[in-house]
């Protein structure tokens, strides 16, 4: 008789009314039946969060990009305080990452009655590409690089070698904040180095194109800043592009990469590669990353629905062994 997986059995809520329990037969078969029932229940709940209007992401990305462009003449003509411009540009950079991220997962749809994750039309593909490219310009990341490395992060989450975001690991929040800066230093094997390394290892035509785009963006950004600066607009370039990009990237690395995956030594399984945590900064400032487990389980659920999806899925997650104790039982 095969060994009973007590670890699995212990995590199952045996009182849940989800499926007939195959008892007193083979206990392992009973555990499997329960797990299958849990999986079915999980999928049924998750699918309820797939549909919904994604057009606000497209509108926000377009409006954000237009506003960001407008900040240059507004700052140059002294129509806006450079510090205010810097703040607005930083928010646009962060927001752009969020809208671009939906594009990375192909979640944007022309036809809102269709679920994300189902087959895309050509128009859907173009919409995701467009939103992705324009959203990420303020933080100077080519969409192809972001998409390929982000999918690698999902596929190999918390793998020290194959997860391109693993370099953000740090023992505490202060060290993590420091690392957001340190990992951007020219001689450090930080984010840029690891993204390049992972893209080279992929070896696909898409990854090669992404590397070319990365190089073009790197040199293009330098050229654009230099042209703006030497034509007398250095302060505008610094306050609308260079500094907001630094601030936005630090926020993104800390909030979207370090916080939900800390301490990165967790199991690599789909239920264990993120953590559920209570943020001191609140839901909005932490961009809902407390519920990042939902994103890793169902990347096609758009970010604004992760919180609701978490509370709907919480009993299933807890049955699967996810530690949800950091958050209250109900929102």
């Amino acid at each position, binding site marked *: 008789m095969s060994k009973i997986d007590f670890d699995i059995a212990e995590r199952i809520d045996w009182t849940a009314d989800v499926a007939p329990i195959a008892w007193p037969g083979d206990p392992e078969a009973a555990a499997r039946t329960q797990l299958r029932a849990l999986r079915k229940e999980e999928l049924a709940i998750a699918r309820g969060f797939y549909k919904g209007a994604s057009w606000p992401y497209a509108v926000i990305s377009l409006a954000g990009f237009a506003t960001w462009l407008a900040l240059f003449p507004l700052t140059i003509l002294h129509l806006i305080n450079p510090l205010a411009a810097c703040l607005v540009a930083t928010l646009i950079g962060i927001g752009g990452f969020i809208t671009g991220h939906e594009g990375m997962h192909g979640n944007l749809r022309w036809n809102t009655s269709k679920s994300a994750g189902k087959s895309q039309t050509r128009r859907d593909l173009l919409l995701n590409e467009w939103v992705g490219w324009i959203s990420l310009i303020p933080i100077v990341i080519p969409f192809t690089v972001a998409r390929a490395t982000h999918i690698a992060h999902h596929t190999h989450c918390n793998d020290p070698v194959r997860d391109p975001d693993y370099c953000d690991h740090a023992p505490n929040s202060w060290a993590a904040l420091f690392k957001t800066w340190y990992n951007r230093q*020219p001689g450090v094997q930080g984010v840029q180095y690891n993204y390049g390394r992972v893209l080279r290892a992929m070896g696909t035509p898409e990854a090669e194109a992404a590397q070319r785009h990365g190089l073009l963006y790197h040199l293009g950004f330098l050229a654009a800043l230099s042209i703006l600066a030497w034509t*007398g607009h250095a302060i505008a370039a610094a306050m609308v592009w260079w500094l907001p990009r630094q601030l936005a990237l630090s926020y993104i690395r800390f909030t979207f990469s370090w916080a939900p995956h800390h301490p990165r030594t967790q199991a690599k399984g789909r239920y264990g590669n993120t953590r559920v945590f209570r943020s001191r900064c609140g839901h909005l400032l932490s961009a809902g990353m407390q519920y990042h487990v939902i994103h890793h389980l169902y990347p096609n659920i758009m970010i604004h629905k992760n919180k609701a999806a978490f509370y709907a899925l919480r009993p299933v997650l807890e049955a699967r062994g996810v530690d949800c104790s950091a958050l209250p039982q109900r929102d």
Partner: protein
Amino acid sequence: MVFVMQRLVKMTPFLFGIGFIAPLLIQIMALGGFAGPWGLSRAAFGLAFGAGWGLLAVWRGRWL
């Protein structure tokens, strides 16, 4: 070509120093009404500072 690009990327802190830091410093000094130290013009000081800091970043691998 790859070699040239690699060298170019390696030198970007220096290029950033003369391309961006230098004019930024010059314009900040002009805005604050500061003259260049040691009898240098703002442009000469900005370029020396930007190029020096950029070269240091290339050499050390860090800006600070």
